[in-house]
């Protein structure tokens, strides 16, 4: 039944039948400013459970700002102001008593890999430890599971206690993904994860994401339109702080678009 929800084409108004499963993330009238500059203007969208939601668009489109707003990074970003409503699991994220609890349910992978200055094992065990898991055996299981799912286990299983920041760029990015998975997130947000990763590794991570869709909802921000096409169920096109169009991904590529700019961008005719 979830599948049918994913496959049904999106329209502006959702039918009551779809409402039975409320959206994982619902965004209403989201506007983000940095000082006087507007980074994102009046965005409305909803992301369903267990879908991969792609966001494509050129630089300065507001993609990263969108992700930052979702997990409330605006709290510690000076000058960043967020207006509008973001509902996660039905809760308004601006009205929470414990913003850390929200963040712990949302995994984020940043564009450049961040191997924290500790061992590979400690990198992945950090989040479970923060949650209060102390048992060595339990941590071992989590670390192995997350590293396996991030397609990194085979490469690092013999040097789990080497420094995470000494891995190669591609390995660090998979370590970052493993760390995000160790949060056991509800929502996984990836921000141009393939920037620092070679094509082979990118494909391996993409396979991992396809698998993960069964368990988590994924927002995939990417500057590679073909990556969105390969992975995303639905895709939004952001341009200059505006959400130009949201649609079933395949429609954007087969010309079923409402806006000429979308067509131009996905066909690479964008200057």
């Amino acid at each position, binding site marked *: 039944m979830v599948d049918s929800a994913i496959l049904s084409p999106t329209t502006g108004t959702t039918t009551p039948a779809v409402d*039975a*499963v*409320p959206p994982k993330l619902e965004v*209403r*009238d989201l506007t983000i400013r940095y000082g006087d500059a507007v980074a994102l203007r009046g965005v409305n969208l909803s992301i369903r459970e267990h879908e991969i939601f792609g966001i494509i668009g050129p630089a300065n489109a507001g993609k990263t700002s969108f992700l930052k707003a979702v997990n409330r990074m605006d709290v510690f970003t000076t000058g960043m102001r967020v207006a509008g*409503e973001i*509902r996660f*699991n*039905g*809760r308004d994220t601006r009205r*929470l*008593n*414990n913003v*850390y*609890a*929200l963040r712990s*349910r949302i995994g984020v992978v940043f564009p450049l890999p961040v191997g924290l200055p500790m061992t590979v094992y400690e990198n992945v065990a950090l989040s479970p430890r*923060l949650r209060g898991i102390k048992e060595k055996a339990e941590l071992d299981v989590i670390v192995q599971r997350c590293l396996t799912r991030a397609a990194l286990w085979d490469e690092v299983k013999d040097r789990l206690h080497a420094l995470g920041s000494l891995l190669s760029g591609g390995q660090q990015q998979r370590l970052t993904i493993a760390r995000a998975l160790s949060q056991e997130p*509800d929502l996984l947000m990836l921000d141009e994860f393939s920037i620092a990763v070679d094509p082979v590794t990118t494909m391996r991570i993409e396979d991992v994401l396809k698998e993960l869709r069964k368990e988590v909802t994924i927002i995939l921000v990417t500057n590679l339109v073909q990556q969105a096409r390969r992975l995303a169920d639905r895709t939004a096109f952001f341009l200059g702080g505006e959400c130009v169009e949201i649609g079933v991904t395949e429609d954007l590529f087969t010309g079923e678009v409402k806006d000429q700019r979308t067509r131009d961008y996905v066909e690479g005719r964008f200057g």
Partner: protein
Amino acid sequence: MGTSTQALSGRATDTQAAADFDRRNLDWYVDKLIAVIVFVCGISAILFVLGIFFFVTKEGIGFVFEKMDFREFFLTPYWSPSDAEDPEYGILALMAGTASVTGLAMLVAVPFSLGAAIFIAEFASGKTREALKVLVELLAAIPSVVWGFIGLVIMNPLLIKWFDIPVGLCVLNAGIILGLMAAPIMTSIAEDALKAVPDRYREAAEAMGATRWQVIYKVVLPAAKNGLLGGVLLGVGRGFGETMAVLMATGHAVNIPGSIFDSVRALTATIAAELGEAVVGGEHYQVLFTIGIFLFLVTFIINLSADLIVRGIRKG
């Protein structure tokens, strides 16, 4: 808008998660507590500065408002506070003493420590580098009275022999001693600043065919200039405020120096030497605290302008 509360679905995990978002657990309270504690620690710096300023001012302000003649104080070089009939309080010679010694010390310390920092950060490697770093830090930890002793017992006869002067306790002696004292800490800070420049800058410049010195001069030094300037200003502050070594190496004679071989006396050394014998609350005592206020203000201005310069660099 959408203010109507949405009915939550029956999914257990969602409800659970939604409840978690409102539950402030121990971690949340620890976070808030730490935030308060570090706030108090941070604010206390302001309290200490205000407290010191208040105390120093309280002791010296009586003289400033009642008896002080600003012209005499700043513009005459006659300092004879213990004269029973007509004490004179002119600090021009003391300012000249402090300025000349600090200036000479910076002439010694800046090139020396910059060179040492460039060698340690850019040229030395492996064991040499580690050994040098340890030694520099060791040098920085030598107490100022030891430096003063070196000035008095070693530099003094050497200067007399080399330059054929009657007394070796002079601007040159104190300047060298103070310069050597300030150099290790300046080296240490400058080296940190150079090491903070990312290697990719060096690699990008080297890849263009720039020589090692060109890389340092054109890329590394400009990138590190904030930290380098910070180190230099810390050195100036050190020289300006240093007391014991200058007391021992300058000769402690009230005198506007005509050459680097003249003995002088520093503002700080005057306070240290005379405060013990001044009658508490008396005029002499108050004048010494007025010098304290003056030192405080100058230090404040040095730090403030350093801050503004660094900000300006950051913007530009």
